[in-house]
């Protein structure tokens, strides 16, 4: 499993971190309710497994579907923009600036636009958050192509779409995956924050705030853990996907 190598150091660190956390809490014993020990969180997770699992399913669906939609839209927009060069010169900085908007603030508006009960409003937040990094980076990747590679293809009288397929898209892959790693984490955060403003109550977002609101911090952290797990799964899925999709890239990174 070449794709899985290099995970041992993080696992060791993780165990150490968790041990430290548990140990410090056991030693100092601050009022345990604010930051429960990992064991308590796991206990709460087991107790509430059904509810947390259900919540993770709902939130996970919003995050993943929004992520996919955002990726598709981002890539399409990037392809469109690279097709027209002047558009690229002007739209890319524009997108960078628009990306600076705190999109979370749109949540209450989106809830009304797409309906409080529809998952669309939460997905829309995820899409909006995911779209920009994907779009900006993919555009860079599609346009920052080695000039001589394009000329080579031209010397073969290759068509425009062929050049896009053979040169631009492979060239954009590392850029795309960099953005995707960012987007994977963003998607979960966006989904949870969006749920916070409306939508189904059995999702992770409400579960976290509601439990915290009732000082059931172990339950809240159990739900946080579920959210983190979704984020981590997505992140590592992206890494595995990257290694599968760009076998040549790992060669570049670990030159032997």
């Amino acid at each position, binding site marked *: 499993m070449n794709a899985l190598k290099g995970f041992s150091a993080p696992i060791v660190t993780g165990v150490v971190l968790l041990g430290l956390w548990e140990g410090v809490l056991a030693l100092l014993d601050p009022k345990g309710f604010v930051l429960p020990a990992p064991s308590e969180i796991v206990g709460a997770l087991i107790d509430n497994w059904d509810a947390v699992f259900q919540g993770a399913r709902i939130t996970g669906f919003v995050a993943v579907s929004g992520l996919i939609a955002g990726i598709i839209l981002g890539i399409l927009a990037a392809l469109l923009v690279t097709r027209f060069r002047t558009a690229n010169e002007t739209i890319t900085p524009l997108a960078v600036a628009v990306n600076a908007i705190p999109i979370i603030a749109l949540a209450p508006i989106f809830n009304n636009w797409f309906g409080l009960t529809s998952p669309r409003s939460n997905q829309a937040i995820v899409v909006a958050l995911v779209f920009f990094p994907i779009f900006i980076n993919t555009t860079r990747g599609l346009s920052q192509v080695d000039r*001589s590679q394009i000329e080579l293809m031209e010397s073969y009288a290759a068509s425009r779409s062929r050049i896009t397929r053979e040169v631009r898209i492979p060239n954009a892959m590392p850029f795309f995956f960099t953005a995707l790693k960012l987007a994977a984490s963003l998607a979960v955060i966006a989904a949870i924050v969006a749920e916070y403003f409306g939508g189904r109550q059995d999702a992770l977002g409400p579960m976290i705030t509601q439990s915290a609101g009732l000082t059931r911090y172990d339950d809240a952290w159990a739900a946080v853990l579920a959210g983190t797990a979704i984020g981590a799964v997505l992140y590592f899925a992206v890494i595995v996907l990257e290694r599968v999709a760009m076998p*040549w*890239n790992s060669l570049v990174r670990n030159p032997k």
Partner: protein
Amino acid sequence: MSEVPSMDEATSAAQGASSLVIDIRGATKVFNPGKSNQVEALGEIDLSVGPGEFITLIGPSGCGKSTLLRLVASLIPPSAGTVQVNGKPAEQARLDRDYGMAFQTAGLFDWRSVTKNIELPLELMGWSRGARRRRVAEMLEMVKLSEFANHHPSELSGGMQQRVAIARALSFSPSLLLMDEPFGALDEMTREHMQDELLRIWEETETTVVFVTHSIPEAVYLSTRAIVMSPRPGGIASIIDVDLGDRNASTRDDPAFFTKVTEVRTALRKVEE
């Protein structure tokens, strides 16, 4: 402002269709014409190259060597004049894939294996899978990289990459080979080795080669004619016929070789004033 060279074309086709591989008449190239950053890259150029010739272009940086090569490749159009390749307009020759091209950097596609890099032009020409594989095997044999068929470019040394690029340029047996400083990045030892390889291929396949270089010994060692270019605007300063016959290990130690080197150096010094 390229005029349609209908008459010209007809005559030249009649005259030299079979005799000239490259026929450049009064070609000029101005970049960004009319703008503040206008660059007159090439003044009027006239140049004819016959079949089987090995032409090297040498000259100071910015004198238009690459531009001239790209005119021939029809990657850019001339501002005036005509460029004919194999008796037809350069554009047509490009569409007919009459030439192979290699650049200063190997310009391989990281995401394709060595085999698939060499296959690329064949794929684009619609060769069958079997034919492609056979040809790639031959080419790998020729550049002595058979054992690296399934490696990716990043696993190869610079010199090996360059050989792949040359294999790619040669893979579809173009009658014309355009090379822009292909050995610039190599160290001297590897470079000399590659020069011998290229000469061998040139002799075996009887292609015509136009080769850009910065190195005087390289220009002399390789070419049948060395063309010294001058800058601002780019033009042909002098043409030095080189006839060293069969080149081999001792050629480089040959006084005749040194004489030609000195001759090219003198021509270059004049250009640089």
